[in-house]
């Protein structure tokens, strides 16, 4: 660390921060960006409203339109099956919003200033993903409340809390994947389209809306282990109070895997200067 005596005042120029200092400053910056993104989220409630409306839309559509067909003969309460899947889908929708939001952020002028500031550049993405995760929690709680109004019953409060945490977690993992796309593409509408490419297939070929047994055999291995399915299964077990087997482990593995791959990649792509 070197202290430089400059004409205006004496300032400390940190030239070779050690790892501890780097981490402290990065968390401080993340907190600052989070504070900023929370203000922005509060001033744009449309994002939250949109996420909740989408969730409620899926609940109504699947429960009342397809519910009968899917659960026919299976002899179970479809709403108890559906809501956990919708919670996971809602969380992923949030991740998609991170992607589009970040792409928009990157094109905003303020981003140029960020790159000229003595701040951790990863904080721009980290702050945003955390702000979106917090918004996601609010969205999930609201969707769950609508589910309860429709007749859904949580087996236990603790289970509900862990389930929402898990859904938020998988959404958080995907929001870093969204950050990679955003940092690479940087055009909000383009990013929106690209997110559809991973979101739709994963969403439809999953156990979010229908049990794996109802799908063709060749598809079943994929459906069983893909992230939306494992998260839906885990959440489903937790809220219904039934054993979940390896599903929580798989969900956590997906979250860690997404973070380990996406976080460094997104920051590297973001940092790239022309």
């Amino acid at each position, binding site marked *: 660390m*070197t*202290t430089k005596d400059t004409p205006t005042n004496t300032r400390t120029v940190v030239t070779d921060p050690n790892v501890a200092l780097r981490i402290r400053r990065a968390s401080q910056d993340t907190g600052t960006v989070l504070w900023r993104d929370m203000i922005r989220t509060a001033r744009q409630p449309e994002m939250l409203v949109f996420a909740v409306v989408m969730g409620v839309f899926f609940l109504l559509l699947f429960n009342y339109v397809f519910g009968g067909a899917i659960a026919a003969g299976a002899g179970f309460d479809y709403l108890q099956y559906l809501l956990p899947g919708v919670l996971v889908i809602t969380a992923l929708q949030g991740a998609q919003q991170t992607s589009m939001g970040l792409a928009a952020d990157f094109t905003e002028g303020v981003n140029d200033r960020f790159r000229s500031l003595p701040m951790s550049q990863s904080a721009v993405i980290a702050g945003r993903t955390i702000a979106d995760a917090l918004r996601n929690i609010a969205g999930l709680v609201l969707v769950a409340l609508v589910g309860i109004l429709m007749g859904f019953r949580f087996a236990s409060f603790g289970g509900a809390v862990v389930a929402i945490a898990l859904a938020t977690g998988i959404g958080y993992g995907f929001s870093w994947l969204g950050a990679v796309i955003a940092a690479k593409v940087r055009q909000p509408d383009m990013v929106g389209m690209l997110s559809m490419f991973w979101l739709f297939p994963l969403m439809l070929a999953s156990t979010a809306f229908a049990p794996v047994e109802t799908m063709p055999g060749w598809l079943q291995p994929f459906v069983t282990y893909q992230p939306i399915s494992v998260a839906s299964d885990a959440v489903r077990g937790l809220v219904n109070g039934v054993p979940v087997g390896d599903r929580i482990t798989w969900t956590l593995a997906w979250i860690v895997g997404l973070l380990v791959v996406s976080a460094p990649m997104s920051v590297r792509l973001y940092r790239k200067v022309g």
Partner: protein
Amino acid sequence: MTTRVSNPVITVQNLRKTFGSVEAVKDVSFNVEPGQVLGLLGPNGAGKTTTINMISTLLHIDAGEASVGGFDVRTQPEAVRQLIGLAGQSAAVDEKLTARENLELFGRLYKIPRVERRRRIDELIEQFDLGEFAERPASTYSGGERRRLDVVAALVAEPPAVFLDEPTTGLDPRSRSELWNTVRSLAANGVAIVLSTQYLEEADRLADEILVIDQGSVVAQGTPDALKRDLERDVLEVHVTSRADLDVARELLGFDESIITDIEARRIDIPIPDGADRSLDLLRQLQEGGVSISNFQLRQPTLDDVFLALTGATVTESEELTT
């Protein structure tokens, strides 16, 4: 360990940047001492923004050297960022946040301690008259208000090196003169300033040293007085009747780089270093040579003349090629 900041604060050596086939900056070098204002003067596309963005770590430097406070921009960008404040060409503030929140955001990111930060922000809002709109989101600001906030944002951390890219573009005369005062008082406090502008007057009033750049290269460099001695001569504008008159006139005047011919407008601009007598001589000479003069005017040089005088050869040539 305490070391004095090295003199000069900003050094730039043979800076170079290409975008594909565009050589945006070819060879730019300068030094800025503490308390000095360097004016980057040049037309659209000259390379002003590219130069500033390279020094302020936003753009990768293709070749050459740049340092701020002794820190190499390429190898120690994180140290450089602690010493600079940048007000880029397009306002870089968060549109959804108010002026106060924006300043708070940047103050936090500069790691200014809380109490000092609050005091500093209040002081800046007061000093720059942001009070009227400080509590409204920036998206509701007028162009000039946003620009002002942007400049103020560059000053939150009282950086010893400040980059202002066309800071007065879009400002009304009052805000412009306030900004000029700000630049002067920053310089008086020892801040090294790089300021780009398209206005000769602005460079003249503020800069200790002016760098005229065009197409990425420095075409003139010196104190405003030295440059003006070179450039501040009256211009005799002669309008002739036909294209043939234009050719005859060029012939009579002889080859001189500083004489600008505008073929479209059938006009010749002749720099006159020594006033009215010489103009009369020239006009008589043209008339006796058979040139039909439709109109003439003796006028002060404009920035156009400065640019054209410095880059005139290429402009005339390309015009002749296309006609």
